[in-house]
């Protein structure tokens, strides 16, 4: 009888430890998520605003804050794309002008946070590599090179 009880206790404890290990593992495991990105053009050119594409709906709420932070009066969308980031397989979002965002890592953190590792390229030239802690739906903006009378901005966001 005592033997059965100790066996049950052992199995129960083992099960608990296994469940705990699984939950910890699941909490920080690489994940398959969709990452969306867009290339923006910030400028003071009001005439171009009329013909250019509006801010994508996903980041429309950031319009005013971005203009204020960048010091430009208008922001237009030049292109956008979405990619699935899977463990151990970097993926890219490519924009016109051979500007691309390469996503090399995406790991789920506790509290629905993601550790994202990305590189920004202009042609074959790597501009920056960055590591950021983000939540789903929170875009990270990168102000890039000057173009025409304004400046290019890249936004990257985990969407699913």
């Amino acid at each position, binding site marked *: 009888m005592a033997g059965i009880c100790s066996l049950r206790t052992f199995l129960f404890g083992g099960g608990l430890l296994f469940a705990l290990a699984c939950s910890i593992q699941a909490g920080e495991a690489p994940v398959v998520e969709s990452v969306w990105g867009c*290339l923006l*053009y910030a400028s003071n050119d009001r005439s171009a605003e009329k013909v250019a594409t509006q801010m994508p709906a996903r980041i429309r*709420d*950031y319009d005013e*804050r*971005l203009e204020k*932070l*960048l010091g430009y009066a208008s922001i237009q969308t*030049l*292109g956008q794309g979405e990619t699935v980031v899977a463990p151990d397989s970097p993926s890219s979002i490519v*924009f*016109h*002008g051979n*500007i691309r965002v390469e996503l090399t890592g995406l790991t789920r953190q506790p509290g629905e*946070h993601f*550790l994202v590792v990305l590189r920004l390229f*202009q042609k074959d*030239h*790597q*501009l*920056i*590599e*960055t*590591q*950021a*802690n*983000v*939540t789903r*739906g*929170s*875009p*990270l*903006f*990168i*102000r*890039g*090179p*000057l*173009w*025409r009378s304004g400046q*290019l*901005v890249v936004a990257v966001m985990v969407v699913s």
Partner: protein
Amino acid sequence: MKTFEERYTAYLDGLLSESEAAIFEQEQPALAAQKAEWSKLQRVLREHLISVELTNADFFNSQLLQQITKTPSRGRSLVAGWFGIPWLAWGGLGAVTAGVALFVTLIPHGDLSDPGSGYVADVLKTTTIDPNVSATVESRKGITIIKLEGLEKVPADEDLTR
């Protein structure tokens, strides 16, 4: 195979065949005396227990029914007091209400009127390969931007819209 209890009951009731009863008595020598005692008890009960017929049966029944109707029905009064909904349903409703109240008061949540309140984008590390390029991180409420300096200007004639 009958159990002892089954055989014993059948033996006392006289339901065992003669041969079975004989075998059972051989196995349990005290049975014969017990059966005799049992028969004696049955006989005494039959002789002395006489059913009494009530002369006022209707009155007795009416009194009995009156007593029954006077006894308060606890379940019915409680049901009436709680508007007909059982205790279990009220318990569930109370638990859900308490859960919602705890969620609202204890779980931190963003301001729904402020779209940037749930925004999290913390830059942990930035590196640039080109020594001429530098990166600075600027974080404001609800927005984070990495500003790159020292980049070559993209030619104006390059069409980035197609």
